[in-house]
């Protein structure tokens, strides 16, 4: 009965949502706690009353260590279980309306890349194979189109030219692998790119090149969510904006074991 009511509620919200201004992603009433902590008397919780990312926008998430910034990105990327009821909208369409992992896993956000310093790729595959294997995250493209975009990316970096289909990813340094993470997003294109401390391994020139590529993606309509402790990244993120692009700063504050997210436009 409860499930049926939730279903009716989701239909109601769906049609109501069709009249609302369409954000790329909108989260309402999200509460999250790690499963093993649920048994505790006062587990750590991440609470988001409302968090919206418009189309073609730049969002910086700031906050101290262990407040839940990476957790929020992992939730958006569909890599965490959601034990507490919440709602998420993607392009105005209601995606998730009940608790539990299976629903979320099936409804993983499409056209989204999550670039994290801690995520894993395939060191034994070549660079090009690592790029091509991520095709399901991005927009539909033919292999030829993807190859051309990848070549464009590589040519601008002036590294790895003519070697991307021969060098294994494991042969690259951490900085090189960070550039390949962005290459996957750049090659396939995406509506949303979430970046979690990826540029920590990059020198100034490579970081600038990284953000130059990111700017190209923003110009093509992509939204960016950036988590970084590095002041340099926040300065470079300012340069990402093009006229009409909203820049959102969301801060997560931890108080009494509850992390709350608040966002404000600038």
């Amino acid at each position, binding site marked *: 009965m409860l499930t049926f009511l939730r279903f009716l509620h989701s239909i109601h919200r769906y049609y109501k949502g069709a009249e609302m201004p369409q954000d790329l992603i909108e989260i309402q009433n999200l509460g999250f706690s790690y499963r093993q902590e649920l048994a505790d008397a006062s587990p750590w919780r991440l609470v988001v009353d409302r968090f919206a990312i418009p189309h073609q926008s730049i969002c910086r998430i700031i906050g101290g260590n262990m407040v839940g910034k990476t957790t929020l990105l992992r939730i958006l*990327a569909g*890599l965490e279980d959601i034990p507490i009821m919440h709602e998420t909208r993607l392009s105005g369409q209601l995606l998730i309306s009940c608790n539990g992992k299976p629903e979320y896993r099936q409804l993983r956000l499409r056209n989204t890349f*999550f670039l994290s310093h801690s*995520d*894993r*790729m*395939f060191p*034994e*595959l*070549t660079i*090009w*194979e690592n790029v*091509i*294997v*991520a*095709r*399901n*995250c*991005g927009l539909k493209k033919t*292999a*030829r189109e993807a*190859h051309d975009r990848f*070549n464009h990316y590589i040519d601008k970096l002036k590294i790895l030219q*003519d*070697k991307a*289909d*021969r*060098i*294994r990813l*494991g*042969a690259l340094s951490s900085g090189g692998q960070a550039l390949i993470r962005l290459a*996957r997003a750049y090659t396939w294109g995406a509506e949303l790119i979430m970046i979690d401390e990826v540029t920590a391994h990059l020198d100034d020139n490579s970081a600038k090149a990284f953000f130059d590529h990111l700017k190209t993606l923003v110009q093509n309509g992509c939204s960016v969510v950036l988590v970084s402790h590095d002041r340099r990244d926040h300065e470079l993120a300012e340069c990402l904006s093009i006229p009409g692009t909203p820049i959102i700063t969301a801060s997560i504050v931890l108080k009494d074991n509850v992390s709350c997210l608040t966002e404000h436009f600038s």
Partner: protein
Amino acid sequence: MPYRAFLLIVLLAVLLAASTSSPHVAILVLSNWLRSALPLVPLALAAGLIISCGQIDIASGAAFSFVGMILIAWSRYSGARNPIAIGILIAWSAVIVFYALMYTLVVRARIPALLCTLGLALCGQSISLILQAFINRPIASVSPSGVGGMTVPLMDLGIFTWNTTWILVVVGIFAVWRYASYAGLDHIAVGMDPVAAEISGIKTQAIYLRAFLISGFLVGLSAILFLVNVQLGGWATNMGWGKELFAIAAAVIGGCRITGGRLHPISVALATILVFGITDITNSLNIPLEFNYLFLGAGVIVVALIDAVRIRPRSTYSRKSRLSQFQLGGRR
């Protein structure tokens, strides 16, 4: 050509040369030898397919057995009333369902693959024994033929006598799938690191399901080819018991890494023939049967050792990607 395939071809050539030069190790009729070896290729490919996506299957031997038993039971009890094609369909469906159950338990219920397939292997053996008891029940209208009535008439199974054609087609399809398709790349990516595969947007559950279902199909094919070409219609309840170890050994020698992430279908096929040949030669040399598995075991250990030594340092370049050759017209 991959290093492993080249090595296996050299070893096979040495084996054949030895067989022609020495009367003691003569593989007397090459066609007969191949006729016996080839039906085991799909079984090894099935093992390789599951190993390469990071799982393990030790129930293939039991499944192999009950495919034949179902056919025998069908043949015995339907007689000439129903065509054997329906029996083949039932047996093939049964083994695919068996592997679908294996997928459900291993992937969805997250039971450790080794324990789960061990349990299913015992269940599969029990199915064969139940079918044997069922077949051996006296029936007034049907007179048993062969040993305990465990034979199936071959006249309707002519298509399965094209042993070599079946194997060439299966290995060819596998090679194209592995080296020239996105699906093959996704498969080994899941075997290398399922978490990384999920981050990369690969539907890991679908990859596992596909691997298990195709393995079921291959085990069914292997059993039917073995029944027709090697056993000439005869079957025993324990025909496949122990063959899962042969299949895993052939897959590992053929280049599959036991932790997943590597699959070379052509090498697996060559390794199956080589392992079968070595077993055959030890028989020809009158080496006691017990030593067969000693050779096989030593071979697996040597291959594992070679794999461990050949781990590449960070600075080495890999060979050119075969995928890009097929899809993008070679190097830029």
